[in-house]
């Protein structure tokens, strides 16, 4: 297989893809949950801020956002690192996190709203503060119901890391393109990249399915 002839490119690319995916997903979950809480907050201004975040990141192309983070921000003096390759790597996972956070936010918001109103009112009337109610009543139930859709977002995120190639991150797709341009073995190069992407996404899908089944039984 061609991947073993160019291990630096393919497996180095795979490793970068994994790093961007993991860091991006972690960021997306944290930011997404925070934005979802803004969107269901009792304060109108916070709801508006959350809504604006979701609409902005969901309605602009990810590749444009990445380009902006890598080549746009330095124009106003913001840089994630002085080293170019650290900078574009960080731009890649930050971009992944910010963009997918919008989708996570929508899913989590749906989950939050899915918790019965009566439980929330009961919790508040028992004397729990709003944060306490979130912590002990609303969020635990939310997480259970949002695992399957979050799994889909995670898989989409792994696949979208391919766009990091446009800002010069030597991830999997970029490895395939470089090998293709050196060997002209297009089919093999892209098949190798496809296979390695599947190595990441298929187990992820399996984990999501298993979790989904567990959650259903636990309920």
């Amino acid at each position, binding site marked *: 297989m061609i991947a073993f002839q160019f291990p630096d490119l393919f497996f180095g690319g795979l490793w970068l893809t994994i790093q961007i995916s993991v860091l991006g997903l972690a960021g997306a979950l944290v930011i997404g949950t925070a934005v979802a809480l803004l969107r269901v907050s009792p304060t109108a201004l916070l709801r508006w801020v959350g809504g604006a975040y979701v609409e902005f990141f969901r309605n602009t192309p990810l590749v444009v956002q990445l380009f902006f983070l890598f*080549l746009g921000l*330095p124009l106003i003096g913001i840089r994630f690192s002085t080293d*170019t*390759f650290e900078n574009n790597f960080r731009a890649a996972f930050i971009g992944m996190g910010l963009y997918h956070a919008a989708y996570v936010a929508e899913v989590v918001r749906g989950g939050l709203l899915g918790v019965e109103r009566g439980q929330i009112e009961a919790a508040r009337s028992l004397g729990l503060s709003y944060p306490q109610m979130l912590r002990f009543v609303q969020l635990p139930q939310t997480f259970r119901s949002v695992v399957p859709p979050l799994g889909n977002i995670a898989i989409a995120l792994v696949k979208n890391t391919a766009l990091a190639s*446009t800002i010069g991150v*030597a991830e999997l797709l970029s490895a395939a*393109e470089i090998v*293709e*341009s050196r060997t*002209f073995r297009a089919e093999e190069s892209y098949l190798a990249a496809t296979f390695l992407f599947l190595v990441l996404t298929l187990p992820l899908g399996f984990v999501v399915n298993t979790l989904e089944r567990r959650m259903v039984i636990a309920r």
Partner: protein
Amino acid sequence: MKRIIATLVAVIFAATACGGASTAPSATPAASATPSKPKFELSTYMYAIQTKGKIRIGTQEDNFPFSVKNPATGKWEGFDVDVGRELAKAIFGTSDDPDKNIEYVAVTSATRIPSLTDNKADVIIKTFTITDERKQQIDFSDVYFITGQRILVKKSDDKIKEAADLAEKTVCAQRGSTSEQNVTKATGGRAKLLLLDSYPACLLALQQGQADAVSTDETILFGLVKQDPNTKIVGKPFSDEPYGIGIKKNQGNDRNGFVPFVNQWVGTLISGGTWAKLYEKHITPVSNDKKQTPKG
């Protein structure tokens, strides 16, 4: 109903034909083109193109000074584009507007070969370096342009002077291009390569200090210097880049006689002085030199 449509089509066709050849109005659209139309053997690909009425020329939309699709007018401009127009004239006969016989196919460095092998374009005229590896996939015409790879740096930079100075520096090049491999060769793999999709993006990276240098064919660097006068081109050319016109291999006799025809035409383009005129028109303004033939 069919007849109405047929009549309409005929009227529109006649109207456009008259509009195109206003100096010599004629009753039938075919009559104006026939006298100067070259004759080809029926089995040749030139004949097939002539019969089809259009040649599909693959070139890039943002490759100054070789091919640019003018955003204001929508018209294609540049050296490669005019070379393509000359080729169209060689097949369809001289005309005021060769574009009416040309279907432009926008390609990038990475899609040049696939657009030929997938039969999306008849020729690729797009700063296309002839290499042995590429020759295994497609055919090339004789050399119609020669350039070399040089280095673009900021005007304030006095450290990078030659290819050897690129070691340990971040060098931007287009992904999927020979430039990338040339930098690797010239520095013994010691340059850090930032591979982006286009040279304008590389220029942006250079301006912001995300790259120390941009390296590719001198002719492309001319375009970047024109965009940003705060940059300069340094070093001797460290590669020999002969550009050819890309053509699909003649498999199953679907490109009969095409490469020999194009080669012969390239020869007359250069010997007849048209080449020098095109060079002066498009290249001289950025290179400040004049050439009579690709070699000098």
